[in-house]
């Protein structure tokens, strides 16, 4: 009896019939109508089994169709996040999934909508995704402003103007095979975002009518951000949507590019705002960070970028003798000085270590000089030689102490070896004396 109830319950988990059936069974049981219950159990179990096994007629039919345009959606839907949350075809497309014929299933009277037009897609998805009350049932933390955000994007604005080649929800998130953003197979998983954008933006033919560059993806792949993302597999490294926005995707523009970079590089952005460069860049209409660092092809920053030598970026604007030229040269020289000092100290400490001396403490202390170097490289964004000096000077002091520790260790090593040589002379002499004594005794 219990097994039967369990079986029925199991088979009818998602069926209203199960609730009715269980309630009915319970009432009958309470009334002690055991015979009636037994016969009704048989009937109801068969009914529940039949209803539990019945699938959506949309999938049943579409999956058998020869035309891949009609069968692929049914196949892809198997892994769709909406299906895993209990939604089915009719929840988006309307119609009657229990109907036996195509005509009945796609009856407009039963709310059948069919395939939405491109222009209608944001609203189609937004029907649920913009409904805060509804979305709470599925994912309380999910934002519900994607549709309104979308219409602030270049994509959305163009779509509103009637342009149908622009990206809509399904262009990025896929259709009938939509996966969670956290799913590595999702087209909008951090590692896949750039490829998804590149599907259109790197396609010169497709983008021709928009008259914008199509080399962003190629450039991005050479950037320090792409290295962090693809080589180090650092999912926090920025990809297209981190700078351009996702649903509201827009080029940041000259005025706000510093704010975009400053989301992560906050200290550099803050220093730049206080630097003399800020006013000068504003006056010349130069975009802040990207003037020196580029936008998509952001290379790994090097010390060669600053200074007055050939290839340095400072000399792109500054000429010999001006204030910026002098400051750039000075900051570079101080950084070079610190690097040389750290290298020298590291070299002598490594040498002492290879010779067996314990120098882990000065090696650890030397890390403060490396930290100072990192800090100085950030402080150059202030364009202030005084600020850079504030950290370079203590860094040099630390490196100097570490070098002295290395010298001391090598001196100690030399002392030990000399001490050993002297000791060994005495030890061998003593052994020889004892040996002679033995000879003397045994000669008697």
């Amino acid at each position, binding site marked *: 009896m219990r097994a039967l109830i369990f079986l029925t319950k199991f088979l009818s988990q998602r069926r209203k019939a199960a609730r009715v059936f269980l309630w009915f069974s319970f009432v009958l049981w309470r009334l002690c109508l055991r015979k009636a219950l037994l016969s009704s159990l048989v009937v109801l179990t068969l009914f529940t089994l039949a209803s539990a096994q019945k699938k959506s007629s949309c999938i049943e039919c579409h999956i058998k169709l020869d035309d891949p345009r009609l069968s692929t959606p049914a196949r892809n839907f198997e892994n769709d996040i909406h299906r895993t949350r209990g939604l089915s075809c009719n929840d988006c497309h309307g119609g009657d999934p229990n109907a036996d014929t195509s005509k009945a299933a796609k009856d407009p009277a039963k709310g059948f909508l069919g395939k939405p037009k491109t222009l209608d897609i944001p609203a189609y998805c937004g029907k649920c995704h913009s409904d805060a009350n509804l979305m709470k049932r599925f994912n309380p933390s999910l934002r519900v402003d994607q549709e309104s955000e979308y219409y602030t994007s270049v994509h959305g604005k163009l779509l509103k103007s009637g342009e149908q080649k622009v990206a809509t929800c399904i262009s990025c998130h896929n259709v009938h095979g939509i996966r969670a953003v956290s799913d590595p197979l999702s087209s909008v998983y951090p590692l896949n975002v750039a490829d998804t954008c590149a599907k259109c933006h790197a396609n010169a033919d497709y983008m021709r009518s928009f008259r914008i560059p199509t080399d962003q993806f190629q450039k991005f792949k050479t950037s320090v951000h792409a290295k962090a993302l693809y080589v180090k597999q650092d999912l926090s490294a920025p990809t297209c949507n981190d700078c351009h926005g996702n649903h509201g995707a827009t080029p940041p523009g000259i005025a706000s590019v510093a704010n975009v970079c400053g989301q992560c590089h906050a200290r550099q952005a803050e220093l730049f705002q206080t630097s003399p460069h800020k006013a000068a860049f504003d006056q010349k209409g130069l975009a802040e960070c990207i003037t020196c660092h580029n936008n998509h092809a952001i290379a790994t920053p090097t010390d060669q970028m600053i200074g007055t030598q050939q290839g340095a970026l400072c000399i792109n604007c500054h000429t010999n003798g001006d204030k910026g030229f002098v400051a750039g040269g000075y900051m570079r020289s101080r950084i070079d000085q610190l690097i040389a000092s750290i290298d020298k100290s590291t070299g002598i400490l490594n040498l002492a270590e290879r010779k*067996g*001396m*314990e120098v*882990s*403490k000065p090696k650890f202390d030397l890390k403060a000089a490396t930290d100072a170097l990192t800090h100085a490289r950030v402080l150059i964004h202030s364009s202030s030689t005084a600020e850079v000096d504030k950290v370079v000077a203590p860094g040099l002091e630390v490196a100097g102490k570490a070098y002295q520790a290395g010298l001391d260790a090598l001196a100690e090593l030399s002392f*030990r*070896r000399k*001490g*050993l040589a002297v*000791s*060994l002379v005495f*030890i*061998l002499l*003593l*052994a020889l004396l*004892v*040996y002679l*004594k*033995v000879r003397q*005794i*045994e000669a008697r």
Partner: protein
Amino acid sequence: MKDWLDERLSISALVAIAQKKEVPLHRHSIWYYFGGMTLFLFTVQVVTGILLLLYYRPSAENAFESVQFIITEVQFGWLIRSIHSWSANLMIATLFIHLFSVFFLRAYHRPREITWVSGVILLFIVICFGFSGYLLPWNKLAYFATKVGTEIAGVIPIVGRPALRFLRGGNDVTGATLTRFFGFHVAVLPATATVFIAIHILLVQLHGMSVPPSLAKENVGKMKFVPNFLLRDLIGWILAIGVLAALAALFPWELGEKADPFAPAPAGIKPEWYFLFMFQTLKFIPAKLLGFDGEVLGIMAFNIIALLLFIVPFVDRPPGNPRRRLLFNVIGVIALLYIVVMTIIGYVTK
């Protein structure tokens, strides 16, 4: 004064015994020196160990730093620490030489069975000294070697898990393990070792040096223990001090990095050289052997071999027939070769 002391301490009787003591002189006499050398190195361990105790602090928070302090700040601390480490290794080496020389020269024959048994016990005590002392600097290698070593002990059926928890002071290697290893290293093991060294030496004095049965029929000469043999021993000890000083000055024992229980185990981690042949054997044994866990079988086999060491003098009793002598020689040579070859393989392989 001399009479006063003699009356109370019977010094003249002891001197008479010492003067009477003789050492057989033959072509294998060289092996007699290794017992004394082991004892000398043990003394070095005791002295340097006491000096290290002046600064060492046995806790997970302070152990590494205190050893670092000893070798960088304390006057000649580096020398004491390095000699302690090198002497420990040389002592185990001379102990193995002593064991095998006694084995091949049949020095365990009646009436020296208990001398052999006390020697085997001392061998295990010394290995425990090595294992417990290795963890004390609390560096990365020591930490993971202890983790693996205690894990191996935990594999032994029935007693393994309780033994593992007893050794570690919990389920993992922590500061609690360090504290109890320190306790074993400086209290339990020295006390036990002292008792067995006393028994061992007393028995050696009682029975005198054994003459190998193969030389029994030859005309074996004799050498006075005092002063002839003792002075020769002394030459060896003086040279040992020289070797230890040279090793300490030229190849100071590394301290490495501080142990970090959350860090991954370093690649290619290996135990100390005297455990390497066993470690390598366990690596070679297949995961499943005759339906049993290969590792368990290997560990059990080593335990049984260790126990068999105790019964050697009771199985190989004099006069013994030539076949049995041959069998024991073959077993000894195979064991020696096995240890040497597996240790080399252990070193060479990553």
